[in-house]
């Protein structure tokens, strides 16, 4: 599981995840992601490279969304692959955080908060 972070011209933080967001993957990114959401306000989590997600991955996203929300910021999810989108939908977490099929739509949503 890899996390690549980029600051966009719009002021939104683009965080791209790649790999399996299973227990092992979630354990690998939890600490760097927690550090990141502590200092950012508006973030798009790009899930285009995530090939698998289970409940520990959902938990990681929820913790990040909660931390940003508590600081007046916002996390939105972008570009999930179909099977990952299925997990987000079934859990209700995709709708709760906000999931968008394109990066542009996700950035617009992050800026609208």
């Amino acid at each position, binding site marked *: 599981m890899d996390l690549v972070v980029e600051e966009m011209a719009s002021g939104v933080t683009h965080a791209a995840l790649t790999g399996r967001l*299973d227990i092992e993957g979630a354990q690998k990114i939890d600490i760097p992601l927690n550090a990141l959401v502590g200092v950012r306000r508006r973030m798009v989590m790009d899930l285009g490279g995530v090939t698998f997600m*289970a*409940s520990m991955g959902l938990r990681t996203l929820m913790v990040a969304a909660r931390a940003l*929300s508590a600081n007046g910021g916002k996390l939105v999810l972008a570009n999930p692959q179909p099977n990952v989108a299925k997990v987000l939908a*079934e859990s209700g977490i995709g709708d709760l955080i906000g999931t968008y099929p394109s990066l542009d739509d996700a950035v617009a949503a992050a800026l609208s908060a």
Partner: protein
Amino acid sequence: MTDSARRAVADDLADLRGAIAWAEDLAVGAGISEDIRYNMQICLEEALANLVLHGRKTAEAKDIVLELTFAPPRATVTISDRCEAYDILKAATPPPPSLDDMHEGGQGLRLIRAFTVLLAYDSDDSHNTLTMGFGPPSVSGGGVA
């Protein structure tokens, strides 16, 4: 044609990826579709992680054993263990997630219920057995057993 295979699973999160990869390879070879395999992977991770993280052994070891049976387009996963019984069919449905609620628990249970077409649990004095069926709903004849 029906194929089956068995594998012991260590009481260690580090063995989960190996167990799931083993199941995935066999399912590919058996001709199970990608969608069904994905559902199987999710439920395997949830069920095995639950045993490793929360299962309280009732013998010297948890003795977790994974058994797969393939009858395309269906796949059936049976997980046996020697932990205190946890009947997934009787467990309460977790509340919907909330950004205000610090408890994320229960998502695994929600996913298992969503991605299986058959779910059964049996427990006797020595073992518990969780059976999860995967396949297209139209040919499953399944549901909660």
